[in-house]
């Protein structure tokens, strides 16, 4: 059952990736395709699954902005998170974003950082998957991954994921998810108080 689910999710991701290659534009496609993936609490992805490739792999890119180094910009349409660096550069991370109806824009600050965050599935998830515990203590396999950064007073976070195949897709309830290595990397680079700008599209 679980293997089948994982396989289906991976097959869906592979099909999407193949389609993107065929039609020449993962970014354009990402705007149109949402993944219908249920959470897999407790699932621990393999290192190979956690290894992103291509555009969503963590990389330094040219990035012209008036925002100060250290600022985070989230481009929800293109599924990228940028951490602004000096000299027109930025570190770019592939992310998963809110599915249709759960996307938002705004300016927030990181109000809290948490290692191995606990997970509380939102009510609509409990309705869909009533067998889920209403609270799962943090640890490997937790859907929030190894780190979380809370955005202002909102219910939204930048966090890890145990479903690396969802990076590049609109799947969440409004949070932004990174693979575990990336969230640990970002977590170590940014302090509480970091400015976070969430936009549908970031102008370079």
């Amino acid at each position: 059952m679980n293997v089948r689910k994982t396989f289906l999710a991976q097959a869906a991701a592979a099909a999407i990736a193949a389609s993107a290659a065929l039609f020449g534009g993962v970014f354009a496609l990402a705007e149109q395709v949402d993944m219908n993936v249920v959470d897999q609490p407790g699932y621990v992805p393999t290192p190979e699954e956690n290894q992103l490739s291509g555009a969503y792999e963590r990389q330094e890119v040219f990035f012209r902005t008036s925002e100060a180094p250290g600022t985070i910009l989230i481009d929800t349409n293109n599924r990228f998170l940028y951490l602004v660096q000096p000299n027109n550069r930025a570190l770019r991370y592939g992310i998963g974003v809110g599915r249709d109806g759960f996307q938002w824009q705004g300016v927030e600050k990181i109000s809290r950082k948490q290692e191995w965050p606990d997970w509380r599935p939102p009510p609509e998830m409990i309705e869909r998957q009533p067998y889920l515990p209403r609270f799962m203590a943090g640890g490997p396999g937790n859907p929030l991954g190894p780190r979380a950064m809370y955005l202002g007073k909102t219910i939204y976070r930048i966090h890890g994921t145990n479903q690396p195949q969802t990076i590049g897709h609109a799947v969440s309830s409004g949070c932004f998810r990174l693979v575990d290595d990336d969230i640990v990397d970002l977590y170590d680079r940014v302090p509480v108080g970091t400015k976070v700008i969430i936009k549908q599209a970031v102008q370079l």
Partner: protein
Amino acid sequence: MAIAIRTGAFALVGACAALLAGCASEPPPPPAVAAPAISPDALVGKWGFAAYHRDTDRARTIKEALGQCNKPYVIAKGANGGVMMNLADQADLSELVLKPGPDGKTYLGPPGDAGTADDRIVTNVDPNSFTTTYVDPDNAARYGTSVYERCGQKKA
């Protein structure tokens, strides 16, 4: 040739002796099916439901379960004497029964043998709480240990 016939005769005698010995004793009685030590009524009610993977998280998970009664896990009695609960990853309810295992553990799952992959092991049962872990290793790894705390219980 003579040696071969004699060896065969000894073997035949031995086999008959074993057969007779087997016939002489009563067949072992079928294992007694003991009633489960836990009544299904003990599981019926509204529960705060939480889970953990590391034993060090048990105490705070129990506390968190108590705080989840605004979205309780409701267990009703089934038509056939069992309890209505979800199997792993199943959104629809099934009637599950408590089954005593040959290992002395109490299992909760579909009617049938105890200890099958769809079952979970029930422990730490008292009027206000119980704990379960899945038998299936994959489910056990994903969901860890589940604790159920009765909603509305008086705090100690």
